[in-house]
Protein backbone atom coordinates (compact mmCIF):
# COMPACT_ATOMS: atom_id res chain seq x y z
CA UNK A 1 0.00 0.00 0.00
CA UNK A 2 1.38 3.37 -0.97
CA UNK A 3 0.99 5.19 2.32
CA UNK A 4 2.50 8.45 1.12
CA UNK A 5 0.48 8.71 -2.08
CA UNK A 6 -2.31 11.26 -2.02
CA UNK A 7 -5.00 11.27 -4.67
CA UNK A 8 -4.19 10.30 -8.22
CA UNK A 9 -0.74 11.66 -8.79
CA UNK A 10 0.61 13.39 -5.69
CA UNK A 11 2.93 12.25 -2.94
CA UNK A 12 3.22 13.83 0.48
CA UNK A 13 6.63 13.33 2.01
CA UNK A 14 6.38 11.91 5.53
CA UNK A 15 9.76 13.32 6.49
CA UNK A 16 10.22 16.08 3.93
CA UNK A 17 13.70 16.41 2.44
CA UNK A 18 15.48 19.65 3.24
CA UNK A 19 17.31 21.82 0.74
CA UNK A 20 20.61 22.39 2.55
CA UNK A 21 22.63 23.96 -0.22
CA UNK A 22 22.24 25.46 -3.67
CA UNK A 23 24.47 26.60 -6.48
CA UNK A 24 23.44 28.73 -9.44
CA UNK A 25 25.35 29.95 -12.46
CA UNK A 26 23.86 32.25 -15.07
CA UNK A 27 24.97 33.38 -18.50
CA UNK A 28 25.88 36.87 -19.72
CA UNK A 29 22.35 37.84 -20.79
CA UNK A 30 20.78 36.55 -17.55
CA UNK A 31 23.55 38.46 -15.75
CA UNK A 32 22.10 41.69 -17.14
CA UNK A 33 18.60 40.69 -16.05
CA UNK A 34 16.73 41.71 -12.89
CA UNK A 35 17.88 38.69 -10.82
CA UNK A 36 21.62 39.06 -11.55
CA UNK A 37 22.51 39.66 -7.90
CA UNK A 38 20.98 36.34 -6.82
CA UNK A 39 23.27 34.09 -8.86
CA UNK A 40 26.47 32.65 -7.41
CA UNK A 41 28.40 33.09 -10.66
CA UNK A 42 27.60 35.17 -13.75
CA UNK A 43 29.48 34.18 -16.90
CA UNK A 44 31.34 36.89 -18.82
CA UNK A 45 30.43 35.22 -22.13
CA UNK A 46 28.79 32.08 -23.49
CA UNK A 47 32.07 30.26 -24.17
CA UNK A 48 33.38 30.51 -20.58
CA UNK A 49 36.87 29.64 -21.75
CA UNK A 50 35.87 26.42 -23.50
CA UNK A 51 36.28 25.59 -27.17
CA UNK A 52 32.69 24.40 -27.64
CA UNK A 53 29.41 25.57 -26.06
CA UNK A 54 28.70 21.96 -25.05
CA UNK A 55 31.86 21.91 -22.95
CA UNK A 56 30.85 25.24 -21.48
CA UNK A 57 27.48 23.80 -20.43
CA UNK A 58 29.08 20.76 -18.81
CA UNK A 59 31.47 23.04 -16.96
CA UNK A 60 28.76 25.24 -15.47
CA UNK A 61 26.65 22.23 -14.46
CA UNK A 62 29.59 20.69 -12.64
CA UNK A 63 30.52 23.99 -11.06
CA UNK A 64 26.97 24.69 -9.83
CA UNK A 65 26.90 21.19 -8.32
CA UNK A 66 30.17 21.75 -6.49
CA UNK A 67 28.93 25.09 -5.13
CA UNK A 68 25.77 23.40 -3.78
CA UNK A 69 27.86 20.75 -1.98
CA UNK A 70 30.19 23.41 -0.61
CA UNK A 71 27.28 25.51 0.69
CA UNK A 72 25.89 22.47 2.49
CA UNK A 73 29.26 22.10 4.23
CA UNK A 74 29.57 18.40 3.56
CA UNK A 75 32.08 16.28 1.68
CA UNK A 76 31.34 15.25 -1.88
CA UNK A 77 31.82 11.61 -0.85
CA UNK A 78 28.81 11.91 1.47
CA UNK A 79 26.41 12.56 -1.42
CA UNK A 80 24.52 9.34 -2.15
CA UNK A 81 23.05 10.17 -5.55
CA UNK A 82 23.38 12.76 -8.26
CA UNK A 83 20.17 13.22 -10.29
CA UNK A 84 20.71 15.53 -13.24
CA UNK A 85 19.48 16.36 -16.69
CA UNK A 86 19.72 18.85 -19.52
CA UNK A 87 18.30 19.47 -22.98
CA UNK A 88 20.93 17.92 -25.19
CA UNK A 89 20.75 14.60 -27.01
CA UNK A 90 21.63 11.72 -24.69
CA UNK A 91 21.72 14.25 -21.79
CA UNK A 92 25.43 14.70 -22.35
CA UNK A 93 25.91 17.73 -20.10
CA UNK A 94 24.59 15.81 -17.11
CA UNK A 95 26.46 12.62 -17.97
CA UNK A 96 29.71 14.45 -18.59
CA UNK A 97 29.40 16.45 -15.39
CA UNK A 98 28.76 13.19 -13.50
CA UNK A 99 32.01 11.84 -14.91
CA UNK A 100 33.85 14.64 -13.12
CA UNK A 101 31.80 14.53 -9.92
CA UNK A 102 32.06 10.73 -9.46
CA UNK A 103 28.83 10.44 -7.47
CA UNK A 104 26.38 7.57 -8.20
CA UNK A 105 24.32 9.08 -10.96
CA UNK A 106 20.83 8.96 -12.42
CA UNK A 107 20.54 10.85 -15.70
CA UNK A 108 17.01 12.11 -16.32
CA UNK A 109 15.26 13.81 -19.19
CA UNK A 110 12.18 15.93 -18.69
CA UNK A 111 13.10 18.74 -21.08
CA UNK A 112 12.55 22.03 -19.24
CA UNK A 113 10.62 20.25 -16.46
CA UNK A 114 13.82 18.58 -15.25
CA UNK A 115 14.26 20.87 -12.25
CA UNK A 116 10.93 19.95 -10.61
CA UNK A 117 11.16 16.36 -11.84
CA UNK A 118 14.52 15.75 -10.20
CA UNK A 119 13.40 17.47 -6.99
CA UNK A 120 10.41 15.09 -6.83
CA UNK A 121 12.59 12.05 -7.50
CA UNK A 122 15.19 13.13 -4.96
CA UNK A 123 12.42 13.64 -2.43
CA UNK A 124 11.16 10.11 -2.99
CA UNK A 125 14.66 8.65 -2.70
CA UNK A 126 15.31 10.44 0.59
CA UNK A 127 11.87 9.97 2.12
CA UNK A 128 11.98 6.33 1.06
CA UNK A 129 15.05 5.91 3.21
CA UNK A 130 17.44 5.18 0.37
CA UNK A 131 19.72 8.18 0.85
CA UNK A 132 20.71 10.96 3.21
CA UNK A 133 22.04 13.34 0.60
CA UNK A 134 20.85 13.69 -2.99
CA UNK A 135 22.22 16.30 -5.34
CA UNK A 136 19.86 17.48 -8.08
CA UNK A 137 21.02 19.68 -10.94
CA UNK A 138 20.12 20.75 -14.43
CA UNK A 139 21.47 23.05 -17.07
CA UNK A 140 20.71 24.64 -20.38
CA UNK A 141 22.77 26.83 -22.68
CA UNK A 142 21.54 29.28 -25.29
CA UNK A 143 24.08 28.23 -27.90
CA UNK A 144 23.83 24.46 -27.46
CA UNK A 145 20.03 24.58 -27.50
CA UNK A 146 19.93 26.86 -30.55
CA UNK A 147 22.19 24.47 -32.42
CA UNK A 148 20.22 21.38 -31.50
CA UNK A 149 16.67 22.65 -31.74
CA UNK A 150 16.78 25.63 -34.08
CA UNK A 151 19.36 27.13 -36.38
CA UNK A 152 23.06 27.98 -36.42
CA UNK A 153 23.76 30.77 -33.94
CA UNK A 154 24.80 33.43 -36.45
CA UNK A 155 21.89 32.80 -38.84
CA UNK A 156 19.71 35.80 -39.73
CA UNK A 157 16.36 34.79 -38.28
CA UNK A 158 13.66 37.07 -36.97
CA UNK A 159 12.14 35.98 -33.68
CA UNK A 160 8.39 35.31 -33.68
CA UNK A 161 6.19 37.07 -31.13
CA UNK A 162 6.01 33.88 -29.05
CA UNK A 163 9.65 32.74 -29.49
CA UNK A 164 11.56 32.26 -26.27
CA UNK A 165 15.22 32.63 -25.35
CA UNK A 166 16.99 29.63 -23.83
CA UNK A 167 18.53 30.54 -20.50
CA UNK A 168 22.25 29.86 -20.22
CA UNK A 169 22.87 28.59 -16.75
CA UNK A 170 22.90 25.76 -14.30
CA UNK A 171 21.19 25.24 -10.99
CA UNK A 172 21.93 22.64 -8.35
CA UNK A 173 20.35 21.86 -4.99
CA UNK A 174 21.49 19.45 -2.33
CA UNK A 175 18.63 17.71 -0.56
CA UNK A 176 19.17 16.08 2.81
CA UNK A 177 17.22 13.91 5.22
CA UNK A 178 18.05 16.30 8.07
CA UNK A 179 19.33 19.83 8.45
CA UNK A 180 18.09 23.40 8.24
CA UNK A 181 16.44 24.95 5.21
CA UNK A 182 13.31 24.94 3.10
CA UNK A 183 11.54 21.60 2.78
CA UNK A 184 10.11 19.83 -0.23
CA UNK A 185 6.71 18.74 1.05
CA UNK A 186 4.54 17.60 -1.84
CA UNK A 187 5.19 16.47 -5.38
CA UNK A 188 2.67 16.05 -8.17
CA UNK A 189 3.82 14.08 -11.18
CA UNK A 190 2.46 15.27 -14.49
CA UNK A 191 0.85 13.31 -17.29
CA UNK A 192 2.01 13.88 -20.83
CA UNK A 193 -0.50 16.30 -22.30
CA UNK A 194 -0.85 17.21 -25.93
CA UNK A 195 -3.51 19.54 -27.25
CA UNK A 196 -2.20 19.18 -30.77
CA UNK A 197 0.05 22.23 -30.97
CA UNK A 198 2.62 22.02 -33.76
CA UNK A 199 4.06 25.52 -33.51
CA UNK A 200 7.75 25.12 -32.72
CA UNK A 201 7.98 28.88 -32.15
CA UNK A 202 5.38 28.78 -29.40
CA UNK A 203 6.57 26.49 -26.63
CA UNK A 204 4.66 28.42 -23.97
CA UNK A 205 1.36 27.92 -25.76
CA UNK A 206 2.12 24.22 -26.28
CA UNK A 207 3.10 23.65 -22.63
CA UNK A 208 0.35 25.65 -20.93
CA UNK A 209 -2.20 22.76 -21.09
CA UNK A 210 0.31 20.46 -19.33
CA UNK A 211 0.87 23.07 -16.61
CA UNK A 212 -2.89 23.50 -16.21
CA UNK A 213 -3.39 19.74 -15.98
CA UNK A 214 -0.75 19.30 -13.27
CA UNK A 215 -1.84 22.38 -11.33
CA UNK A 216 -5.46 21.22 -11.25
CA UNK A 217 -4.37 17.68 -10.33
CA UNK A 218 -2.30 19.10 -7.48
CA UNK A 219 -5.23 21.10 -6.13
CA UNK A 220 -7.54 18.09 -6.54
CA UNK A 221 -5.22 15.68 -4.78
CA UNK A 222 -4.17 17.94 -1.93
CA UNK A 223 -7.38 19.87 -1.37
CA UNK A 224 -5.33 23.05 -1.61
CA UNK A 225 -6.02 26.10 -3.75
CA UNK A 226 -4.12 29.05 -5.18
CA UNK A 227 -4.49 31.03 -1.94
CA UNK A 228 -2.59 28.34 0.00
CA UNK A 229 0.61 29.44 -1.74
CA UNK A 230 2.45 32.77 -1.51
CA UNK A 231 3.94 32.02 -4.88
CA UNK A 232 2.88 29.74 -7.70
CA UNK A 233 5.74 29.57 -10.12
CA UNK A 234 5.74 28.07 -13.59
CA UNK A 235 9.04 27.13 -15.19
CA UNK A 236 9.14 28.70 -18.61
CA UNK A 237 5.72 29.46 -20.06
CA UNK A 238 6.82 33.04 -20.82
CA UNK A 239 4.32 35.79 -21.57
CA UNK A 240 1.97 34.00 -23.94
CA UNK A 241 2.06 30.63 -22.16
CA UNK A 242 1.28 32.22 -18.78
CA UNK A 243 -1.70 33.98 -20.29
CA UNK A 244 -2.90 30.67 -21.74
CA UNK A 245 -2.45 28.93 -18.37
CA UNK A 246 -4.60 31.56 -16.68
CA UNK A 247 -7.28 31.03 -19.33
CA UNK A 248 -7.17 27.24 -19.08
CA UNK A 249 -7.44 27.04 -15.29
CA UNK A 250 -10.11 29.75 -15.28
CA UNK A 251 -12.25 27.41 -17.39
CA UNK A 252 -11.96 24.95 -14.53
CA UNK A 253 -12.94 27.50 -11.91
CA UNK A 254 -9.47 28.31 -10.60
CA UNK A 255 -8.40 31.93 -10.68
CA UNK A 256 -4.67 32.65 -10.54
CA UNK A 257 -3.96 35.97 -8.88
CA UNK A 258 -0.88 38.12 -8.35
CA UNK A 259 0.84 35.24 -6.57
CA UNK A 260 1.28 33.51 -9.92
CA UNK A 261 4.55 34.23 -11.72
CA UNK A 262 6.65 32.62 -14.40
CA UNK A 263 10.42 32.05 -14.16
CA UNK A 264 10.82 32.90 -17.85
CA UNK A 265 9.45 36.37 -17.17
CA UNK A 266 11.46 36.86 -13.97
CA UNK A 267 14.92 35.96 -15.25
CA UNK A 268 14.88 38.60 -17.99
CA UNK A 269 13.53 42.08 -18.38
CA UNK A 270 11.48 41.14 -21.44
CA UNK A 271 10.90 44.79 -22.35
CA UNK A 272 14.48 45.99 -22.58
CA UNK A 273 16.29 42.69 -23.27
CA UNK A 274 15.67 41.18 -26.70
CA UNK A 275 14.58 37.75 -25.52
CA UNK A 276 11.23 37.35 -27.25
CA UNK A 277 8.41 36.21 -24.99
CA UNK A 278 10.79 35.30 -22.15
CA UNK A 279 13.24 32.66 -20.98
CA UNK A 280 13.09 28.90 -21.45
CA UNK A 281 15.26 25.87 -20.80
CA UNK A 282 16.02 23.63 -17.82
CA UNK A 283 18.12 26.35 -16.24
CA UNK A 284 15.27 28.87 -16.39
CA UNK A 285 13.30 27.36 -13.51
CA UNK A 286 16.47 26.09 -11.79
CA UNK A 287 18.34 29.39 -11.49
CA UNK A 288 15.19 31.35 -10.59
CA UNK A 289 14.03 28.83 -7.98
CA UNK A 290 17.39 27.93 -6.45
CA UNK A 291 18.96 31.35 -6.90
CA UNK A 292 16.15 33.81 -6.32
CA UNK A 293 13.11 32.14 -4.73
CA UNK A 294 14.96 30.15 -2.07
CA UNK A 295 16.88 33.28 -1.04
CA UNK A 296 13.59 35.15 -0.75
CA UNK A 297 12.20 32.29 1.36
CA UNK A 298 15.18 32.64 3.67
CA UNK A 299 14.39 36.34 4.04
CA UNK A 300 10.78 35.47 4.77
CA UNK A 301 9.22 36.94 1.62
CA UNK A 302 7.65 33.60 0.76
CA UNK A 303 6.71 30.71 3.02
CA UNK A 304 4.84 28.36 0.65
CA UNK A 305 5.91 28.04 -2.94
CA UNK A 306 4.58 25.75 -5.64
CA UNK A 307 6.95 25.22 -8.52
CA UNK A 308 5.48 23.79 -11.72
CA UNK A 309 8.22 23.22 -14.24
CA UNK A 310 7.00 22.54 -17.76
CA UNK A 311 8.74 20.64 -20.52
CA UNK A 312 8.11 20.04 -24.21
CA UNK A 313 9.00 16.47 -25.12
CA UNK A 314 9.43 16.87 -28.86
CA UNK A 315 12.67 16.57 -30.80
CA UNK A 316 13.69 18.30 -34.05
CA UNK A 317 13.10 14.94 -35.72
CA UNK A 318 9.54 14.46 -34.45
CA UNK A 319 8.76 18.06 -35.34
CA UNK A 320 10.04 17.67 -38.90
CA UNK A 321 7.96 14.51 -39.25
CA UNK A 322 4.89 16.57 -38.53
CA UNK A 323 4.16 15.29 -35.01
CA UNK A 324 2.49 17.58 -32.50
CA UNK A 325 4.32 18.61 -29.32
CA UNK A 326 3.69 16.41 -26.25
CA UNK A 327 4.28 18.33 -23.04
CA UNK A 328 4.66 17.58 -19.36
CA UNK A 329 4.66 19.51 -16.11
CA UNK A 330 5.74 18.44 -12.65
CA UNK A 331 4.87 20.31 -9.48
CA UNK A 332 6.72 20.42 -6.18
CA UNK A 333 5.71 22.34 -3.09
CA UNK A 334 8.52 23.97 -1.14
CA UNK A 335 7.84 25.27 2.35
CA UNK A 336 10.05 27.40 4.56
Amino acid at each position, binding site marked *: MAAKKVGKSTVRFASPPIIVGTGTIAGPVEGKGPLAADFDVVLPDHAYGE*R*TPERSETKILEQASRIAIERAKIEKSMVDYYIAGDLLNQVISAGFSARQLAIPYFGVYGACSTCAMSLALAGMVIDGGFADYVLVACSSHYQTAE*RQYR*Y*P*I*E*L*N*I*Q*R*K*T*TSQYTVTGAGAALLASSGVGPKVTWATTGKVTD*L*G*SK*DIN*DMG*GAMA*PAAADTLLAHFDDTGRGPSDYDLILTGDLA*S*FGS*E*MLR*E*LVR*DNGVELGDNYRDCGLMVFDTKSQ*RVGAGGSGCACSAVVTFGHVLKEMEKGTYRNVLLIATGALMSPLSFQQGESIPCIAHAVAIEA
Partner: protein
Amino acid sequence: MASQKAKKQVSSLPHMTQAAQEEKRRQLAYKELVQKKKPRPRYLRNVLVAFVVGGAIAVLGQLVLRFFMSRGLDLDAASAPTLAVMILVGVIATGLGIYDELGELAGAGAAVPITGFANTIVAAAMDYKREGWVLGMGAKMFLIAGPVIVYGTLAGVVVAFIKFMTSP
Protein backbone atom coordinates in the same frame (compact mmCIF):
# COMPACT_ATOMS: atom_id res chain seq x y z
CA MET B 1 -15.13 26.44 -23.83
CA ALA B 2 -15.81 24.48 -27.00
CA SER B 3 -17.18 26.93 -29.50
CA GLN B 4 -19.91 26.29 -32.10
CA LYS B 5 -17.32 26.03 -34.82
CA ALA B 6 -15.32 23.39 -32.93
CA LYS B 7 -18.49 21.39 -32.19
CA LYS B 8 -19.47 21.42 -35.84
CA GLN B 9 -16.02 20.24 -36.92
CA VAL B 10 -16.13 17.38 -34.42
CA SER B 11 -19.61 16.17 -35.30
CA SER B 12 -18.24 15.28 -38.72
CA LEU B 13 -16.15 12.55 -37.07
CA PRO B 14 -18.74 9.90 -36.13
CA HIS B 15 -16.33 6.97 -36.38
CA MET B 16 -14.37 8.14 -33.32
CA THR B 17 -15.02 6.91 -29.80
CA GLN B 18 -16.57 9.25 -27.28
CA ALA B 19 -13.26 9.83 -25.49
CA ALA B 20 -11.38 10.50 -28.71
CA GLN B 21 -14.09 12.93 -29.81
CA GLU B 22 -13.87 14.72 -26.49
CA GLU B 23 -10.09 14.95 -26.85
CA LYS B 24 -10.42 16.26 -30.39
CA ARG B 25 -12.95 18.83 -29.22
CA ARG B 26 -10.54 20.03 -26.52
CA GLN B 27 -7.75 20.26 -29.08
CA LEU B 28 -9.83 22.28 -31.52
CA ALA B 29 -11.08 24.59 -28.79
CA TYR B 30 -7.54 25.19 -27.57
CA LYS B 31 -6.28 25.79 -31.09
CA GLU B 32 -8.97 28.42 -31.53
CA LEU B 33 -8.09 30.06 -28.24
CA VAL B 34 -4.40 30.17 -29.16
CA GLN B 35 -5.13 31.64 -32.56
CA LYS B 36 -7.34 34.27 -31.01
CA LYS B 37 -4.92 35.31 -28.28
CA LYS B 38 -1.53 34.91 -29.90
CA PRO B 39 0.17 38.30 -30.16
CA ARG B 40 0.39 39.47 -33.76
CA PRO B 41 3.72 40.54 -35.23
CA ARG B 42 4.11 44.27 -35.84
CA TYR B 43 3.51 43.91 -39.55
CA LEU B 44 3.81 47.58 -40.54
CA ARG B 45 7.03 48.09 -38.61
CA ASN B 46 8.46 44.80 -39.96
CA VAL B 47 7.59 45.62 -43.56
CA LEU B 48 9.06 49.12 -43.32
CA VAL B 49 12.31 47.97 -41.71
CA ALA B 50 12.64 45.11 -44.20
CA PHE B 51 12.12 47.59 -47.05
CA VAL B 52 14.70 50.07 -45.72
CA VAL B 53 17.37 47.50 -44.82
CA GLY B 54 16.83 45.36 -47.93
CA GLY B 55 16.83 48.53 -50.03
CA ALA B 56 20.04 49.77 -48.41
CA ILE B 57 21.78 46.47 -49.20
CA ALA B 58 20.54 46.76 -52.80
CA VAL B 59 21.82 50.34 -53.03
CA LEU B 60 25.22 49.18 -51.79
CA GLY B 61 25.19 46.49 -54.49
CA GLN B 62 24.30 49.09 -57.08
CA LEU B 63 27.23 51.30 -56.01
CA VAL B 64 29.60 48.34 -56.32
CA LEU B 65 28.18 47.57 -59.77
CA ARG B 66 28.65 51.21 -60.85
CA PHE B 67 32.21 51.08 -59.62
CA PHE B 68 33.04 48.05 -61.79
CA MET B 69 31.25 49.60 -64.76
CA SER B 70 33.16 52.84 -64.33
CA ARG B 71 36.34 50.75 -64.65
CA GLY B 72 35.31 49.66 -68.12
CA LEU B 73 33.23 46.48 -67.61
CA ASP B 74 29.87 46.25 -69.32
CA LEU B 75 26.72 45.36 -67.31
CA ASP B 76 26.98 41.58 -67.82
CA ALA B 77 30.68 41.42 -67.04
CA ALA B 78 30.30 43.67 -63.96
CA SER B 79 27.55 41.49 -62.42
CA ALA B 80 29.86 38.64 -61.44
CA PRO B 81 32.43 40.64 -59.44
CA THR B 82 29.56 42.63 -57.86
CA LEU B 83 27.97 39.42 -56.57
CA ALA B 84 31.36 38.27 -55.31
CA VAL B 85 31.85 41.52 -53.39
CA MET B 86 28.35 41.37 -51.89
CA ILE B 87 28.89 37.77 -50.84
CA LEU B 88 32.15 38.82 -49.20
CA VAL B 89 30.31 41.59 -47.35
CA GLY B 90 27.76 39.04 -46.10
CA VAL B 91 30.52 36.64 -45.07
CA ILE B 92 32.46 39.26 -43.12
CA ALA B 93 29.34 40.65 -41.44
CA THR B 94 28.40 37.12 -40.36
CA GLY B 95 31.89 36.41 -39.05
CA LEU B 96 31.79 39.60 -37.02
CA GLY B 97 28.44 38.59 -35.52
CA ILE B 98 26.58 41.52 -37.11
CA TYR B 99 24.43 39.79 -39.69
CA ASP B 100 22.26 37.79 -37.30
CA GLU B 101 21.44 41.04 -35.50
CA LEU B 102 20.51 42.56 -38.84
CA GLY B 103 18.29 39.55 -39.55
CA GLU B 104 16.57 39.89 -36.19
CA LEU B 105 15.91 43.55 -37.01
CA ALA B 106 14.95 43.34 -40.67
CA GLY B 107 13.70 39.79 -41.36
CA ALA B 108 13.32 39.26 -45.09
CA GLY B 109 15.14 42.55 -45.75
CA ALA B 110 18.32 40.85 -44.60
CA ALA B 111 17.48 37.31 -45.71
CA VAL B 112 16.52 37.87 -49.37
CA PRO B 113 19.60 39.68 -50.76
CA ILE B 114 22.61 37.52 -51.66
CA THR B 115 24.32 38.71 -48.46
CA GLY B 116 21.66 36.73 -46.60
CA PHE B 117 22.39 33.66 -48.67
CA ALA B 118 26.08 34.00 -47.81
CA ASN B 119 25.06 34.32 -44.17
CA THR B 120 23.24 30.97 -44.16
CA ILE B 121 26.34 29.16 -45.39
CA VAL B 122 28.85 30.90 -43.15
CA ALA B 123 26.63 30.66 -40.05
CA ALA B 124 26.34 26.89 -40.53
CA ALA B 125 30.05 26.57 -41.31
CA MET B 126 31.00 28.48 -38.13
CA ASP B 127 28.74 26.32 -35.99
CA TYR B 128 29.72 22.94 -37.35
CA LYS B 129 33.45 23.61 -37.57
CA ARG B 130 33.58 22.39 -33.98
CA GLU B 131 32.68 18.90 -35.18
CA GLY B 132 35.65 18.87 -37.55
CA TRP B 133 36.50 20.09 -41.05
CA VAL B 134 35.08 17.09 -42.90
CA LEU B 135 32.14 15.57 -41.01
CA GLY B 136 31.35 18.90 -39.35
CA MET B 137 31.84 21.92 -41.55
CA GLY B 138 32.23 20.12 -44.86
CA ALA B 139 29.10 18.04 -44.42
CA LYS B 140 26.85 20.60 -42.82
CA MET B 141 27.68 24.04 -44.18
CA PHE B 142 24.83 23.77 -46.70
CA LEU B 143 22.31 22.76 -44.05
CA ILE B 144 20.23 25.91 -44.57
CA ALA B 145 21.38 26.85 -48.08
CA GLY B 146 21.08 23.31 -49.45
CA PRO B 147 17.32 23.38 -50.12
CA VAL B 148 17.68 26.78 -51.82
CA ILE B 149 20.32 25.38 -54.16
CA VAL B 150 18.43 22.13 -54.86
CA TYR B 151 15.05 23.69 -55.53
CA GLY B 152 16.55 26.78 -57.18
CA THR B 153 18.31 24.53 -59.68
CA LEU B 154 15.18 22.43 -60.14
CA ALA B 155 13.05 25.52 -60.73
CA GLY B 156 15.63 26.74 -63.26
CA VAL B 157 15.43 23.45 -65.14
CA VAL B 158 11.62 23.52 -65.17
CA VAL B 159 11.47 27.12 -66.38
CA ALA B 160 14.11 26.46 -69.05
CA PHE B 161 12.15 23.40 -70.20
CA ILE B 162 8.93 25.39 -70.47
CA LYS B 163 10.73 28.09 -72.43
CA PHE B 164 12.30 25.49 -74.70
CA MET B 165 8.95 23.84 -75.39
CA THR B 166 7.05 27.08 -75.98
CA SER B 167 9.57 29.05 -78.01
CA PRO B 168 9.05 28.82 -81.76
